[in-house]
């Protein structure tokens, strides 16, 4: 696809929807649905300035720290559990149980345990976003190719070298699939952790707007969240293309033949 074509595909539908929205809200006086231009203005005046530094950046910071630890811990623990058979058999039912708990219910618990602070919010993000990475990694390690494994063994590639050159790259496709889910879970939990007993952050501000009937501001907050999600998706794709270029190439070839 040519770059121009790609850009057209990328922005085509959003533009169409905005036009549609503009047409439908033209002349409407509904208090709860803002008009596009009004919303764009609000977006600018509400979020560019102090709020950006007081609410948006701290939220993003907590999200970044939470995701980093969720992914790093998920990979490390996943490699450990996946390569130790007894540990895997012992822990797997338990892990599935924890994964099944909806993470928002952990917020009150973590508030009691940690208190209402940044650590609690980061902990909420980690406790929800770790599972897809962790379980995918365990599953991936279990399924590494037996012939590659034998190759490693016969060349004496063991221990850390085995992880570094064989297991970790082999599991990367599963890890990335897990990370993709973790990103959206992380974003959700970032907002939820700020809705309870908090005095700043994106989630807090949006709820605040809603309570004060600042409807266009509330909508603009939702747009900010959407943009953050989009940003995460773009970063993810960029990283995934680099890390897994071999995987996509391999898949393309096996599908062709």
């Amino acid at each position, binding site marked *: 696809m040519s770059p121009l074509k790609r850009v057209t595909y990328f922005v085509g539908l959003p533009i169409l929807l905005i036009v549609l929205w503009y047409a439908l809200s033209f002349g409407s006086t509904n208090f709860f649905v803002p008009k596009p231009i009004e919303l764009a203005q609000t977006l600018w005046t509400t979020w560019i300035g102090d709020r950006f530094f007081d609410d948006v950046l701290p939220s993003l910071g907590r999200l970044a720290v939470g995701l980093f630890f969720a992914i790093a811990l998920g990979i490390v623990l996943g490699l450990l559990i996946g390569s130790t058979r007894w540990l895997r058999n012992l822990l797997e039912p338990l892990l599935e149980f924890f994964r099944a708990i909806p993470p928002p219910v952990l917020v009150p618990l973590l508030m009691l345990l940690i208190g209402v602070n940044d650590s609690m919010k980061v902990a909420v993000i980690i406790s929800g976003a770790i599972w897809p990475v962790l379980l995918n990694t365990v599953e991936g390690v279990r399924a590494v190719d037996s012939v590659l494994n034998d190759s490693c063994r016969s*060349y*004496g590639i063991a221990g850390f070298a085995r992880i570094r050159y064989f297991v970790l790259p082999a599991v*990367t496709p599963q890890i990335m699939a897990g990370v993709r889910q973790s990103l959206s879970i992380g974003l959700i939990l970032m907002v939820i952790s700020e809705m309870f007993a908090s005095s700043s952050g994106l989630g807090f501000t949006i709820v605040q707007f809603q309570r004060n009937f600042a409807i266009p501001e509330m909508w603009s907050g939702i747009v900010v969240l959407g943009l953050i999600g989009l940003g995460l998706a773009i970063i993810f794709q960029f990283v995934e293309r680099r890390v897994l270029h071999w995987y996509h190439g391999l898949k393309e070839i096996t599908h062709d033949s």
Partner: protein
Amino acid sequence: MTVSETTMNQPVQAVPMLSVRGLQKIYKVPGGEVEAVRDLTFDLAEGELVCLVGPSGSGKTTLLKCISGLMEQTSGTVELNGSKVTGPPKSMAVVFQEYGRSLFPWMTVRANVELPLKNQKVPKNERAALVDAALKSVGLDHVPKSYPWQLSGGMQQRVAIARAVAYRPQVLLMDEPFAAVDAQTRADLEDLIRTIWKQLGVTILFVTHDIDESVYLGERVIVLSSSPTVVQEDLKIDLPAERDQLNTRALPRFMELRSHVYAEIQRAKLGPVTEQITAQRRASLK
């Protein structure tokens, strides 16, 4: 440990490089046992190139896995240079049947060949020289930056061979390495193996189910019976050392040898069945 060191330390009446004694492997499967290999005994002297032929399912892969220390045998012993093999030995390299799954798809050809050396902490310069030489010897010095999956099957298997060659093993085990490549490539690869063998003086055990291939390649051919497997015959191949695809295969001696091996394999396949029939007859005579 280098090859020359060990040769120097060896007594003149050398211990065989590889010695297999009474090897048996029984697989435990749900609801019973499968005896893949019953009783195998044979030796490989240092620098020999021996082919192992046997019908499909006769336990060739099983045998190779036991020899290479990747799998534990049920009974019997494998000795490399006089010491018992209990795990994958350092001085052995294996080329697997499934070439598509034995190279790391996330590494370039060069990185694949280099990895075992890197793992052995071979200094960088030496490593580069070894990798270059190995890639050159298999005729792949033009694609070091490609990924394995961008190459044809025959080329992938050559990368796997280059990796084994660069590692400088004392013993090289190959499990039907050419089973899945086309006839022309296969002929080239066969000549490649003989060239490498002569250059490196490495001991090679080459497993195949192709009779012609075994006779063309080997200095000796070991014929396996069908499962449960024993050594059916151990045959010396007295063909000239210089072999080439056209002339060697046209030699009357080549024809004789291949017919002989063919007959042995047929006998191997029929073996247990004929025994069964005789047993039945005997039973019905009573």
